[in-house]
């Protein structure tokens, strides 16, 4: 730092903001402040569901608007021999499992998924960090796969269990959607990006595209899909890896 005045200004600014934020971080572990956050999240979900009552599609772009750079975030390359072996076999041994509250549990190869009705869309990916990029995605609508498996009446949420880990000692990545977002026509199990097979960094062989929500909801490296009635038994019960370990909001349509 250059001078005592600027240093003092910077330090006092840091101390003051730190104190307020420390207050917030302590408060959000206690009721009723946790309830305020919970109430706010629930309010956001309800308000946005009113706006989505007519089931609008997100905007789709033209090929000329594709971003030259589409950043890779989260895991670049799932560590471990198991993924390495799948990759070496060009994912011939990979299977997407669909299980839980379904009438017909499925085990689908990549070729089987690619033979299903497909959708290609050019959409905006908004990361909660603040950057965004436009990419083209090709895949099977998730609703189609769920209808093949047949949802049981008590089904409420769809959980995606993945092959990657954000931190090596941590859990494998997982995310979840409710059924309304799961059956949205632009919610895809994508195996293609920008006209090519899905690159490793973007979640090969299969990733979720949930265009109504932001980046971290779009689980990569999907291994199995579990249909559940409650999220309590998944991870620490908040519905996803970032939700459980970073207090991210579960419904992220904002």
């Amino acid at each position: 730092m250059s001078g005592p005045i600027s240093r003092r200004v910077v330090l006092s600014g840091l101390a003051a903001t730190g104190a307020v934020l420390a207050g917030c971080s302590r408060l959000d572990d206690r009721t009723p402040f946790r309830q305020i956050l919970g109430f706010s999240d629930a309010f956001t979900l309800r308000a946005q569901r009113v706006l989505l009552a007519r089931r609008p599609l997100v905007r789709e772009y033209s090929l000329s608007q594709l971003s030259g750079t589409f950043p890779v975030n989260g895991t670049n390359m799932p560590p471990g021999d198991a993924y390495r072996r799948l990759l070496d076999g060009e994912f011939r041994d990979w299977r997407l499992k669909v299980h839980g509250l379904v009438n017909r549990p499925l085990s689908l190869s990549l070729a089987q998924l690619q033979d299903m009705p497909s959708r290609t869309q050019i959409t905006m990916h908004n990361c909660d960090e603040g950057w965004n990029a436009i990419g083209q995605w090709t895949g099977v609508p998730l609703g189609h796969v769920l209808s093949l498996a047949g949802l049981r009446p008590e089904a409420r949420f769809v959980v995606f269990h993945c092959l990657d880990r954000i931190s090596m000692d941590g859990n494998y990545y997982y995310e979840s959607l409710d059924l309304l977002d799961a059956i949205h026509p632009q919610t895809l199990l994508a195996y293609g990006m920008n006209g090519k097979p899905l690159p490793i960094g973007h979640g090969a062989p299969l990733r979720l595209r949930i265009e109504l929500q932001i980046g971290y909801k779009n689980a990569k490296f999907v291994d199995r899909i579990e249909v559940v009635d409650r999220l309590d038994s998944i991870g620490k019960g908040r519905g996803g890896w970032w939700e459980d370990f970073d207090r991210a909001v579960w419904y992220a349509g904002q």
Partner: protein
Amino acid sequence: MKTNQNEQVDYRHPLPVRLWHWANAAAVLVLLLTGLLIFDIHPHLYWGEAGQEGEGAFVSFSGQHLDQKVPRTELQIGSGRWNTTGKLGSTLEDGFGGRYLLVASPPEDWQFGATRGWHFAFAWLLGLSLPLYAVYLLASRRLDRTLLPTRGELRPRSMAHELWEHLRLRRARGEAARHYNSLQKLTYLLVIFVLIPGMVLSGLAMSNTLSAAWPALSELFGGHQTARSIHFITAMLLVAFVLVHVFQVFVAGFVNLMRSMITGRFVVERESAP
């Protein structure tokens, strides 16, 4: 109501005004701090629809934590580039070359995901209280009576006089202290009808759901990243307002103004007071 010969007490701020003022003060404080933490993760601003990795950014803040443990920060605006080390921003050692911090330093146990949760909770407070307040201002005729400048106040000579009084930090007395002056009125109108709505709308324009339900909103701003840049610039304008506003509270009489915004009662000093 009279207290003594040199003073008169006005009931200046009705309850809805005070409630709205303090709700906004809390909302702006939390939104600013959480907003800065969110900005720190990607401290680049772009125009248009998409922007990533600082490519084509018109504003980039950056910081490095070099091997010598010396933080170095830079600010780039357009084609200009300045070394801002020690003047603006700092870096936190994070093992990846340093994390940039514009202002706020989060505590060690801070979880980034929670930042957005707090941001949205207080965004609801800001966004929902504003239309309620606008209805109150209209229905109570307070907009006409206290905020809209008169034709006389808008004359250049009158505005110039008011500006000169402000620059000399003169405290209004007597009848002049009983109502807002023209600069104050225009500033409050700007904050209530331009800056806060601009914050709320540019924030909503970044929402995935809103871009599906109301595509016109994002288009109105000229794209997602433009909306984000306007969100940041408008926030800085609000910060400038808050700094001047708080400074003026000290100039015009801290105790009297704080009392009037807490209890509603404002003491007017007679012009001829000795």
